[in-house]
């Protein structure tokens, strides 16, 4: 369960978040949509404890996220970064099991590699990929490896930052299907940031629209296309005119 209470954040005199309130229930999947530079990724970084909000609080499974000690909540979270963020100097299996090799929960190299191969299979990649380096992988394979890293260790919450950005439609569909399958089989809570409306409907049950630092609309993803809300209408139809300031 994720609870965001009245979050404010300003960077260099520019208000990015202006009182964001959000609740993501246990086991549900929510997509956060909004214009580029609207503060969506900042919300994720606040959830991870990477950025400290100016005001407000965030709770993960009723535990307050602390910028000073993010470790208390990070052990419950898996994260898929926009650009995959794989470590270039490590082979795929060490990337996937990094937290079991270098972090607080230790596994032997042999066990870690076995666990990595099991997770590679979950995302549709075979064991041969385990010994490759990120530079040898395509964009879609990197995303799948990053997904394997996000789900290793059975986190209770998974955060996805633009999981299909830069991928072709076929790979986008593959990644979305994998995410849906993982969400259903692992019974996790997910929060996904995306611009892709078809992805929203494929991978999430609920949607929130963020604009000018505030949540403007919340609802079921199946209600999104028929919504009469002016913010939703402008966003999903890509209109220049409307309440969302696109300049």
């Amino acid at each position, binding site marked *: 369960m994720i609870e965001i209470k009245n979050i404010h954040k300003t960077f260099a005199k520019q208000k990015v978040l202006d009182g964001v309130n959000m609740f993501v229930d246990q086991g549900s999947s929510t997509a956060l949509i909004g214009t580029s530079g609207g503060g969506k990724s900042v919300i994720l970084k606040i959830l991870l404890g*990477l950025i400290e909000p100016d005001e407000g609080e965030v709770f993960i499974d009723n535990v307050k996220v602390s910028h000073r000690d993010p*470790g208390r909540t990070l052990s419950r979270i898996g994260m898929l970064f926009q650009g995959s*963020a794989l*470590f*270039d100097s490590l082979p795929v299996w060490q990337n996937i099991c*990094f937290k079991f090799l*270098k*972090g607080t929960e230790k596994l032997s190299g042999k066990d870690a590699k076995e666990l990595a191969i099991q997770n590679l299979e979950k995302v549709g990649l075979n064991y041969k990929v385990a010994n490759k380096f990120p530079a040898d992988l395509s964009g879609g394979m990197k995303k799948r490896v990053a997904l394997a890293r996000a789900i290793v260790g059975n986190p209770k919450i998974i955060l996805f930052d633009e999981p299909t950005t830069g991928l072709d439609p076929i790979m986008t569909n593959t990644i979305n299907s994998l995410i849906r399958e993982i969400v259903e089989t692992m019974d996790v809570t997910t929060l996904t940031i995306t611009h892709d409306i078809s992805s929203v409907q494929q991978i999430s049950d609920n949607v929130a629209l963020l604009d000018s630092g505030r949540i403007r609309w919340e609802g079921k993803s199946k209600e999104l296309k028929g919504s009469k809300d002016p913010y939703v209408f402008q966003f999903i139809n890509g209109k220049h005119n409307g309440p969302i300031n696109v300049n």
Partner: protein
Amino acid sequence: MNVSLNKIGKVTDFIISIFLNLVTPPIYSREILKAFYQIGWMSLPVLGLTALFTGGALALQIYAGGSRFNAEQVVPAIVAIGMARELGPVLGGLIVAARVASSIAAEIGTMKVTEQLDALTTLSTNPIKYLVVPRVLAATLSLPALIAIGDSIGILGGYLVGINRLDFSSSTYLASTASMLQISDIFSGIIKGVFFGFIIALSGCFNGFYASNGAEGVGKATKSAVVAACVFILATNYILTEAFFNS
């Protein structure tokens, strides 16, 4: 003024964080060994060549200058003292700064702009402890050794030029070097190496850590790391020389 104060604050905070992480577990011994290999061992060839040619050129210059006062016999002593006190540490520091500060800043900077540093944190690994502490330790401890080796190679360069080009006999050259070179000359250079090593690693790590704006930002961070390291090495060298020899 505010920008400068802000940067001084950030550097101070960074240094404190390095020392706090230096004395608390976990210790990434494999990363430390890797850093010693890359910073210390791999700097030897370029440092050795620089010292060899500098020692040789120094012998030629001192001979040419000394001959104006019929003081050619001072060549061995001045080559040895000059290398041990000044040229060995300063040239060694500058060469290693160019090689190591740039590579550290580029590596960590790239990790920063591709979210790999954030990924480290989400995988329960402190980036300061995992990336910065090994590099600072390796540079601070290996530079004194590099400087001692560089001093020896520089003196060898002077010796080779002395006996082959300047008609010194081998025994006279060696006896003159041994009689004039004091232990304090050697140790002053080695102590300078400790400071220079710390400056090089700090400059590379700090600028990499605060890199932003993609490839351009990494380029700027790399340039800043080398410039800052070189300037601080030269300034620190003057301060230490005052402290060692004028007190």
